[in-house]
């Protein structure tokens, strides 16, 4: 199973980036190999408009099973994410990736 995080940094101790579209990084955790991979999202962050749709497109290509983020995607992003077979959990701002994963496993993150 692949879990995607919107992240402000590149490792387990990095904070969740509360933003979806303009997140600094997308970090993917693959629990079968127990490995992290990092995608730099700075190009999208610098789009004047439509960051949400551009980030959604990236997420689509990564095809995670789960997305863990902060405030949650805006309208535009939500419309794209709907097309994917993926569960989205929000409310993980102020947590590190590690804490966010634990929170998800305990079922304390809200599904949207």
């Amino acid at each position, binding site marked *: 199973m692949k879990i995607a995080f919107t992240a402000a940094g590149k490792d387990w101790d990095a904070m969740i980036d509360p933003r979806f579209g303009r997140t600094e990084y997308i970090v993917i955790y693959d629990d079968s190999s127990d490995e992290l991979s990092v995608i730099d999202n700075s190009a999208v962050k*610098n789009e*004047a408009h439509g960051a949400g749709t551009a980030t959604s497109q990236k997420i689509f290509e990564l095809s995670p099973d789960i997305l863990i983020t902060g*405030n949650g995607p*805006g309208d535009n992003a939500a419309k794209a994410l709907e097309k994917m077979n993926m569960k989205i959990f929000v*409310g993980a701002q102020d947590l590190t990736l590690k804490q966010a994963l634990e929170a998800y496993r305990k079922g304390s993150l809200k599904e*949207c």
Partner: protein
Amino acid sequence: MKEIVVISGKGGTGKTSLTASFGIMGAKDVVLADCDVDAADMHLLMQPDFEVAEDFYSGEVAYINQSNCTSCGLCQDVCRFDAISLHNEQYVISPLDCEGCGYCARVCPTETIINNDLLVGQLFVSNVKTGGQMVHARLGIGADNSGKLVAKVKDEAKVLALKNKKDYILVDGSPGVGCPVVSSLSGASFVVLVTEPSVSGLHDLKRVYELVKKFNIKAGCIINKADVNSDKQAEIKRFLMDEGIEHLIDLPYDENFTKAMTLGQTIVEYENQNLTSLLEQTWEKIKQLTNQNNREK
């Protein structure tokens, strides 16, 4: 570090005056971020030193390099914004009309059109009289605020807050309900809605709250000039109740706000009585709700 965002939907509700007052009370613990870049006024009350200034680019603008241009006119044919015209047998692009879609550059057979990054304004980082710091921007004429500019102002503030271990970023949010206000809200820990009891105040409050709701951010509301219209005030309170929005405070219509502003001050520096104590209570409440918001998770 928590991010508190103040928005209002409608102009003229006192949003900036109130944000600046909270900035004064938060003093050194707060980094201020002015994302109301269409009318960035908060610095007028903050004595900024403009320590760092940098140009800000957002979007693109097309430019024709005349030396390779064969004057085929294809660029003008495809442009939907009437931005390209023929002057003395040369095609030129009016930067004010160019939408930055890049279509002309894509079809130009000699690849003589380039898309330059569009300079839209300047970004400033200042030390201010609170002892803290402030980030604000100034747009050029005809330039549009964008999600990117708002994100950049907030990012700069975040970097400062992390570096100097500040507790709060206090954001004067963008007006309206479009992309900039979405970007203002994105990443917020708590939202302060400022409204006034008028037909348009309530109308705009409802519109902007739709966005707040979408992002699952906890919100509180200040009714400014509350005594101007008691029917509308009651109507706003009902709306807050129905939506589960914390009613933070009712503030009276008071010309001391303006008198303070005229002296380059916020109300909490100008008077030492009623309004100041109301605002002190409000600021404490905002901080409490912002932090409580997190423990709930």
